[in-house]
């Protein structure tokens, strides 16, 4: 079973067609994901990691890089 980090990276590469980025790179600032893409990302978190994302959690500190996502999932009990 691959790690959340690997699964997230695979999802980003397959969905947004970008693979040359660092785990700390901001998705928005680097135009890796736009606002429509954020919805796809949240849908992916909910379906593949079985977590619920509340509206108040839709902030860059949780979602805007691989590192932030991994930390966010860890808080939600996914490791």
């Amino acid at each position, binding site marked *: 079973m691959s790690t959340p980090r690997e699964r997230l990276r695979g999802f980003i590469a*397959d969905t947004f067609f970008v693979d040359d980025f660092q785990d700390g790179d901001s998705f928005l600032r680097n135009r890796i994901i736009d*606002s429509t*893409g954020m919805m796809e990302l949240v849908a992916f978190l909910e379906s593949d990691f079985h977590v619920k994302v509340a509206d108040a959690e839709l902030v860059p500190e949780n979602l805007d890089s691989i590192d932030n996502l991994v930390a966010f999932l860890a808080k939600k009990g996914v490791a």
Partner: protein
Amino acid sequence: MCGIAGFTIPQGLPAAARRERYGERGRAMVASLFHRGPDAQRVSLLDGAVLGHARLSIVDLAQGHQPMCDPETGVAVAFNGEIFNWLELKASLPGYRFRTTSDTEVLLAAFLARGIDCVKDFVGQFAFAVWDPRDATLWLARDRVGIRPLYLARTGEGVAFASEAKALFAGGWLAPRLDERGVVDAVHLWAPMTPRTQFDGVEALPPAHVACVKDGVVTQRRYWALDLSDGNVRRDLSMDEAKEAVRAVLDDAVTLRLRADVPVAAYLSGGLDSSLICALAQRRLGGTLQTFSVGFAQARYDERAFQQEVATALGTTHHVVEVQDADVGALLPEVVWHGEQVLVRSAPGPFLALSRLVRQHRTKVVLTGEGADEVFLGYDLYKETKVRQFWARQPRSPHRPRLFARLYPYLPLSQQSPEVLRDFFGIGLEHPEAFDFSHQVRWTNTGRVARFFSKDFAARVAAYDVTEAVRAQLPPEVQGWRPLARAQALEMATLLSGYLLSAQGDRMLMGNSVEGRFPFLDHRVIEAAARLPDRVKLDGLEEKAVLKRLARGLVPDDVLARPKFPYRAPIAEALVGPSAPEWCRALLTKPAVDATGVFDGGKVEKLVAKLAKATAAPSEADNMALVAVATTELLAHQFIHAPRAVPQAHLDAVSVEDGAVPAGGRG
């Protein structure tokens, strides 16, 4: 309006040798432009140059034959377009004995009187070639904003020119190959940056330029530049004074554009600009105006209710063509064939359907509202620039980026977090004086298409700097202008001439032999607007304020009150899934895409698979990438891999002659 083509040849050749060497090349060039001028096609073999012309008869139907020459000097012209003030010019040229009532002869007379500087007197939309045997010089000229196209190729055999690149290929001057930098331009700027085109070796004569071809050497110079500097602005002007100034010049621009020996109709989008033009035209015509509109089967793109409301209020005879998703895909090969460029939007296609409708109603001239957004600050891009400029003064302010949520209420995340807005709209905020400050967000977003480039292609173009290519084409004084003025200059140099007037304008009109006329792009209107203070154009965040004032009472209030509705057409739903045309299934495959070499076939297949899912929610980036790939493949397919042949009937139709038609001579 018409098509022109030609090339320089050695002087002193006997007529028979000229005909043998160059007759068929000229014939092929003009025949390839048949759609631009189905009424007559002629090639003139002159001593030193070959001029060709395909004619769409609009003024002096009986006598305006081309290429036309002055019988006394032998100066000959091939002319595409209109000089709307030709009657006034004619009155100012008493030294010339006019033999026809055509505007082409006025061009000849003006050239004889003033030389190539005659272009400065022209109010119009034109591209023309003049051969002057007195000093063996070929002159080329193009209108101020690039309404009419003109391309050239410098070859070992001479200099060739034409209204469309396909004529240069038909004449055998060069083989079609993609200009890789032009592709990079297109997926950032929406069009190749003049003089670059989508084809290697084919250059565009930039708008507002003349070229002199002598002894095989081409020299170009700019003959007009728009002054958007602060010093040119009448700061104290009130809104009422501004409105009256615009009314006078715009009304005259419309009136001049109704001059024709055939009926003039109008496009009606349902927005402010075209509605205002229709209203002014209908008053001049006394109630005989015909209007033409695009309707979309998909409600999210459709504006028929507003179009009908305006048509009813103005009492026009109204016609609509309804476009289905599948039509957009089916039209795209023709769009690319005529447009000759890589696109990031599917919106030109419906305009091809619209010009077909116009032609079916035996109409060949239409007015449109094109240009108002550039000239009177209509686009969101100008508001975005204004907000970014305001924000840049206090870059740490948590409140200022929130203005973007007001500007783009449809961005789902925009209301939620200033940090997100900062990341998305804050590019280059620390350098508001940067030459491209206004366009950084758009160019960066569009540039996401580049992630689909193949590895080899990306490596080949890695050193190419799009922004520098743009900067090199703008007059140096632009750098010193205020941000909104710089934004306007950039918008006119990239999107307007490169995309809206060409791929979505001239080419989609001429594809069905229809001439467009653009009152907002009369240079007197553009110059009058440049003298207005920004506050009457972009009032706070209200766009085109002065036009809205002017339109009150002329255009229904509903149209003035509605928010700006960007014209768009379906993309993913037209090119992927059940509505997708057959060509998509053939060209959007890994082997086909890899063979062209621009994009990565594996990524393209993944994109298509992603968008084919029933649950797909295509992002802006996905849609733009899909159109860019599809149009690149169509361009490569139709011009390089399986080039279309010029139809024999069109070749046969061209008359190849040993001289030009003397003004007033036989047709």
